[in-house]
């Protein structure tokens, strides 16, 4: 597989300091038996939405190193609590893309920009937290 990003990624995305690194992370999913649909970035899922296209994080996937951060965010945001009830655990394998720590309020948020054609969900499995 070519390690290339989708053609519609702007030149400033991912940022220069993003790197390939295998990190154990958690991601919220909509279904317990999650699929590739749970691993598409916001910009890929909603190409018509212009409002967040200037945010490099919106081109990547949100994952957390610390599962407690997922719990905390679900408590705060009804959309996450109601629609992203399940959790998958896996690794940000270098073959799939590049990562960068992008915390909000000092949490463990990481943005993972996925290479074109990569299937990151294959490295994840459902967990209960």
């Amino acid at each position, binding site marked *: 597989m070519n390690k290339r990003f989708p053609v519609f990624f702007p030149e400033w995305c991912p940022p220069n300091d993003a790197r390939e690194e295998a990190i154990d992370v958690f991601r*919220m999913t909509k279904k317990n038996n999650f699929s590739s649909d749970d691993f598409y*970035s*916001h910009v890929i899922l*909603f190409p*018509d*939405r*212009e*409002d*967040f296209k*200037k*945010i*490099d*994080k*919106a081109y990547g*996937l*949100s994952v957390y190193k610390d599962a407690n951060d997922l719990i*905390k*965010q*679900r*408590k*705060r*945001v*009804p*959309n*996450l*609590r*109601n*629609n*992203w009830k399940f959790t998958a655990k896996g690794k940000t394998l270098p073959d799939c893309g590049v990562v960068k720590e*992008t*915390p*909000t*309020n*000092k949490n463990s*948020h990481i943005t993972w920009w996925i290479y074109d054609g990569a299937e990151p969900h294959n490295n994840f499995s459902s967990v209960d937290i």
Partner: protein
Amino acid sequence: MKGEEIMNNKLEIDMLGTCYITEVFVFYDFPQLFLCNTETGTNILMVCLDMNSEYTEYMALPLSESKLLEAYRNRVSLYQLYSKPEGLLWRIKQYHNVEVCEATIRNPEELTEVELPDEDAFLDYEFDGELENDETYIVNISELEKRDVIKLSLEPKESHVQEIDCSSLGDILIHFQDAVNSIADKGKSIKGKLSQDTKEENLINVVGFYAASFGVKFKSNKISDLFGETTASKAILELFELFDLKDNKIEIIKKLGEMSPKAGIKYRKFINSLRKAELSFKAEVATPKKDYINIAISKNDITKIYNILSEHSEIDDRTISLKGKLVGIDVKQNKFSFLNEEGESFTGKLDDSICDSEFVVPKDVSIRIREQVEVDDMTNCERYKYILLEVRESK
């Protein structure tokens, strides 16, 4: 998350106008809990309720500065904020292929648990690396809104007291605006009265208060021109450059010497209002042109500046040349009366060097006079005195 990256983003909402995203508290694939600022300066806390292939829904909660401060300090939960709003609560529907979001009023009493955050969820606000970058933040706001932005953090008694008495705050705000006006008035009106144009061009609005000892946020009333300057930018920067000189006597006198005498007087009044209130302060200033000033002035600095301004009356003293009509001379009482070309009247005393001269009145002449401005420290009233130094025939 703050700064250029996020400041480029906004939501257009039919009932609320343009909402600029200023802070993101939860980012999960996209901002899901974030703060917006409307063009009128209202804070709106947005939380994502649902998202599907067609639209995204948010709950929008307008917040006063004090309520926002409570939220920042975890004194009120997100559940309480949304279930007991201070005013209206809005449900926002954003169709993904439509630019303007639809807003409808939501009755808080009809809210279901599904629409609310958990009861024990708080904003849990902590400054991270990006949030600490206040320079980027304020400069971006200024550039985005094309207005000068000033954040003045007043520190009563050099502590973190978050209250200030009405008269002190009123005094400070009035003298702050006066100081900017007077600096801007350079070379325009000779006498004390400011022109209406100067007042309008340099009008500064208080747009809110923020979390600081006592933080006041200002924005220029006018927006910038093509070159990124508002009509007030220059005077605002000059005022804060004066502050930045602290008690450097030589530089203060030099800088004030380049301004009208009014500027020195009004600056002293502003300093006096801070001195009387026993305040220290921190200030950040940004202009749409990306000028940025960040200063901290202690209570001690303020006293020293005030003493310098009071001791050196020569900064309120200048010689000016005028053209007009000499309309009266009283050699017995050493008095003169003069009308300049704009019709302003100047009366005062004759200098010793010319009191034995012969005068013809009325006559069109050029004169040189010394203008002295005195300020009563108790009442802050100004008194202008003029001394006629020289009279020459008009060419």
